[in-house]
């Protein structure tokens, strides 16, 4: 829907100095010190000159920013439930269009649905799929901290293989989480979504450029943001950005985009650091570095390599065409 022509002009972020300096989030929220998801939210919102409508799913970002009567949001914001941010955002987008047609709304705002990995990979997957299929003009952001952190670090289908959580504990029989992380990007891309990308809070320029590109699309878009949780992953609050950076540099979390089906790696990692550099910062993987779990570590390494190869192959094939 062509509600706001200004939005259709995509400008990549060239310099940190061009970023909007008017704060979109107020301090005083109750997120933990060093919260990765809050960094993601700030970077996303600062990257835009216009104020989007944000529809939050239930989760860490939602509860910590909205304790009545305190709201940290300096953009129009609403929370309804856990599993339906994509559906609520669909309604907002359709309503804006109806009001615009009736001449009661001057300009449509960008709509951002914001959910964690639980609200996206698990309980919100159906609503997300529906919204993608219907083609609403909205950006769906998944801030991925790889478990249900708000309820106390329970595993989700985004939790990586081998990771400790409170429902994938490490024991004689269990290696931490026994299943591999769901390929949410693959699911989204399979919908024919015009633009989907991964991003990391450590690579702000890449992230902000992707937000701008997503918002400029005339249809549904998806951003999968890696947002470490120091409480859940068991690392020092000061290391949030460093952990996110190492996830990229070890190829654990590849940064790429898929524009109209075309894959492109936006942050190439020619010489990956050893995976241990990423794992060793985090308590949730500490068991993997013990000799008795060397097989599990080997398996995780092969999962990481396979994931990278798959994306790399998709990107290379299309580069040749």
């Amino acid at each position, binding site marked *: 829907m062509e509600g706001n022509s200004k939005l259709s002009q995509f400008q990549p972020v060239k310099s*940190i*100095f*061009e*970023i909007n*300096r*008017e*704060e979109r*989030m*107020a*301090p*005083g*929220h*109750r*997120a*933990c*010190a*060093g*919260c*990765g998801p*809050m*960094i993601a939210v*700030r*970077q996303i919102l*600062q990257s835009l000159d216009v104020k989007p409508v944000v529809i939050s799913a239930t989760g860490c970002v939602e509860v910590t*920013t909205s*304790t*009545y*009567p*305190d*709201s*940290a*949001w*300096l*953009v*129009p*914001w609403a929370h309804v439930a856990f599993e339906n941010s994509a559906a609520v955002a669909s309604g907002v987008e359709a309503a804006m269009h109806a009001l615009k047609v009736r001449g009661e709304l001057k300009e449509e705002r960008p709509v951002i649905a914001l959910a964690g990995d639980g609200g996206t990979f698990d309980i919100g997957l159906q609503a997300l799929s529906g919204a993608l299929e219907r083609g609403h003009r909205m950006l769906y952001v998944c801030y991925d901290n790889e478990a249900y952190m708000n309820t106390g670090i329970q595993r989700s289908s985004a939790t990586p293989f081998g990771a400790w959580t409170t429902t994938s504990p490490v024991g004689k029989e269990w290696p931490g989480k026994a299943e591999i992380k769901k390929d949410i990007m693959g699911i989204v891309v399979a919908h024919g979504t015009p633009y989907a990308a991964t991003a990391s*809070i450590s690579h*702000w320029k890449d992230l902000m450029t992707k937000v701008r590109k997503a918002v400029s699309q005339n249809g549904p878009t998806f951003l999968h943001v890696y947002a470490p949780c120091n409480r859940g992953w068991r690392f*020092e*609050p*000061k*290391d*949030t*950005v*460093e952990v996110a950076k190492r996830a990229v540099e070890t190829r654990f979390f590849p940064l790429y985009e898929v524009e109209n089906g075309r894959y492109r790696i936006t942050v190439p990692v020619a010489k990956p650091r050893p995976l241990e550099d990423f794992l060793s910062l985090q308590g949730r993987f500490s068991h993997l570095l013990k000799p008795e779990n060397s097989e599990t570590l080997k398996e995780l390494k092969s999962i990481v390599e396979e994931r990278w190869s798959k994306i790399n192959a998709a990107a290379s094939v299309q580069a040749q065409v």
Partner: protein
Amino acid sequence: MSDPRVRPVGPYPISQGGWHEGGSSKAYVTNDWRLEKPVVDLEKCVGCLYCWVYCPEPAIDLLDRAGKGPSKVRIDYDHCKGCGICQQVCPPKAIKMVPEEEEVANNGSI
């Protein structure tokens, strides 16, 4: 004993449906969350904005909010939770973390 049907006066007004003007969290102070506080050496600060772009609060105030170039910063000590990310990401290492109790020359507490 007072009439049990009378509603007690709550700490704040009750809106219809629980909405509120955005940004009201700013009145909530989180300075007692931290054990260490960041101190900015304004001599070393190059105004690169990295601490601002990585701050989860935001508790980094830009001295040049309206500009389009480098801006030096000061810490919002009412809201900084002391995570130390700003110190980690600062390219010229202009930020150091010091114990909360330590008296420091005020570099722009707001």
